[in-house]
């Protein structure tokens, strides 16, 4: 596993902590809204996994693109989506980033390079592959990131993408969020290989990372992203982390050991980062202040979203095809 390297800069870590907290509190807010029946459809929460999107995104700029998964809230927010647009989308409002047509599984924001959450396991890898191809063909200085779960490694498409990325030497970072689970089953029963072994077979550099430590994630990916940007070709990063909630909200996780669940709080990325901040002299009051700011922003976004109009059906119907050239 890659270890934390640079001497920690408290202000940088605090920024990462703040973003993780933004993701966490947003999802916690969603839990409540969902329980109240305000958020329709399925929502898949990434609570416990925040260090991965936040750590990876700390190395990206707005010109870089990402493709996400069904568990994409963290990717979206960390890539810079507006909180208002995010909540409005999940509440099915016209001011949602996707005008209420996509919801949780399809949050996207082209202006920040977030090419979409995705309801199809594995599909994001090919979207990211194509985006990387565009960066390369158009001689951009950008890279593309494919986020995917450990379970997605069973999809043939993931393997096709590894192969094509390696062949074409694309500026593509593969980020596996390994939380050990595919829905209600341990991924170990679904995958006969390790991602390390697989990457080796493809000749793609592989890095295993503590996905619960945002500093480690950020420090690990920074040089990798730089290498990719310089034309070094694709890299695989596997982030080991934990899914704290059920596969989707409403899943009581009866299939999980009490022991396993009991061990989760210790690895909580907010706890890990919080402790380190304390060691660095950022006191509890400071963190509470951050939390208050985060909560305030979230409440403002939620209340704006709540007040927003419902989408108009005729406008949706008119957007199946492009009327004017948009590109």
């Amino acid at each position, binding site marked *: 596993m890659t270890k934390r390297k640079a001497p920690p800069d408290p202000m940088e870590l605090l920024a990462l902590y703040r973003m993780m907290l933004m993701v966490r509190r947003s999802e916690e807010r969603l839990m409540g809204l969902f329980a109240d029946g305000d958020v329709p*459809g399925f929502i898949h929460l990434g609570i416990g996994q925040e260090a991965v999107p936040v750590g990876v995104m700390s190395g990206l700029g707005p010109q870089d693109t990402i493709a996400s998964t069904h568990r994409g809230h963290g990717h979206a927010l960390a890539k810079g989506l507006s909180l208002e647009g995010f909540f409005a989308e999940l509440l099915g409002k016209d001011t949602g980033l996707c005008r209420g047509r*996509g919801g949780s599984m399809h949050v996207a924001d082209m202006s920040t390079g977030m090419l979409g959450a995705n309801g199809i396991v594995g599909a994001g890898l090919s979207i990211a592959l194509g985006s990387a191809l565009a960066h390369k063909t158009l001689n951009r200085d950008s890279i593309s990131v494919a986020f995917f779960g450990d379970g997605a490694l069973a999809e043939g498409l993931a393997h096709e993408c590894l192969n094509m990325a390696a062949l074409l030497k694309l500026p593509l970072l593969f980020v596996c969020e390994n939380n050990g689970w595919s829905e209600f089953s341990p991924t170990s029963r679904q995958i006969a290989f390790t991602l390390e072994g697989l990457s080796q077979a493809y000749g793609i550099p592989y890095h295993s990372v503590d996905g619960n430590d945002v500093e480690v994630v950020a420090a690990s990916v920074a040089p990798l992203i730089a290498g990719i940007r310089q034309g070094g070709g694709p890299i695989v990063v596997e982030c080991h982390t934990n899914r704290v909630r059920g596969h989707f909200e409403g899943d009581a996780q009866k299939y999980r050991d009490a022991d396993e669940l009991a061990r989760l709080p210790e690895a909580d990325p907010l706890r890990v980062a919080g402790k380190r901040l304390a060691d660095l002299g950022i006191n509890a009051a400071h963190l509470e202040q951050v939390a208050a700011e985060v909560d305030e922003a979230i409440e403002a976004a939620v209340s704006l979203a709540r007040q927003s109009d419902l989408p108009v*059906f005729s406008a949706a119907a008119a957007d199946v095809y492009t009327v004017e050239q948009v590109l």
Partner: protein
Amino acid sequence: MAILSFSRAINKALSDMMDLDPAVILLGEDIANAGGSFGATRGLLDRFGGHRVIDTPISEAAIAGAAVGAAMSGLRPVVEIMFMDFSTLVMDALVNQAAKARFMFGAQCSVPMVLRTPHGGGLNAGPQHSQCLEAWFAHVPGLKVVVPSDAASAYALLRSAIADPDPVIFVENKALYAAKMEVPDDLALSLGRARLARQGKDATVVAYGAAVHWALEAAARLAEKQIDIEVVDLLSVQPWDEEMVLTSLAKTHRLVVAHEAVEAFGVGAEIVARMADIGFDELDGPIVRVGAPFMPVPFARSLEESFRPDADRIVNAVLRTLE
């Protein structure tokens, strides 16, 4: 006879067929330990064991392809694809392998497999978890396509589908899973036969799946206006019961076809097209279709509600053809 929900009826059909024939096995994602995303396979792992109720990786193409090879080698696999939207990943196995094997190998073998999959909206599950794609399969010679409308037809048709020597796509409407009714143990339904769900004389409404209930609701509302419609529940869309539809049309002379799928290029188009040919002389009014508008299934409640067809639209369609 028992009172069962639609999903319990599926469960019972699977269980009964597995009891009858050791060649019946189940394959799918989270169908064994977890009992399936909609609970249709709950308890079957305990009853039949892990060699017959198999949790697979998220590898839809391989699952479906394996079902073809297994069916050619003596098993009767029943595959669950979690949402019909994911059938995009199994098209080759179904279309180029399962559908064609019997024909292209000169009838040396058949491919007795069933692919169960839920379609339809109402859960605000959005554009990639709500589609009704049965028209694709109905266009493929060699596949049969079944869409039961309630627990009883689900039970009987799933038994028939599993017993059938050819590949059958078995489509379950999500909005029906919880609905309960009496399910006779000995109900037998043949693939390809429709059911006269309501007798009437003024117009015929042909529907399948959840749309049958909208049609019956429309019938009740129209009855208040002294309009008496006949409702044909197709049950199978490939092959479909042309004879029953034609007979009904010859009686009512007006035709409406309704389904939840997108109207354009949907199953209804074929029913209409046949009737506009062989039933032309019986027609006293335009044939009107009711289906979803031409757009992806939207997420927001308000949008999805406007998107999904319902009894109102069937009422309007009937009124239009009677104009």
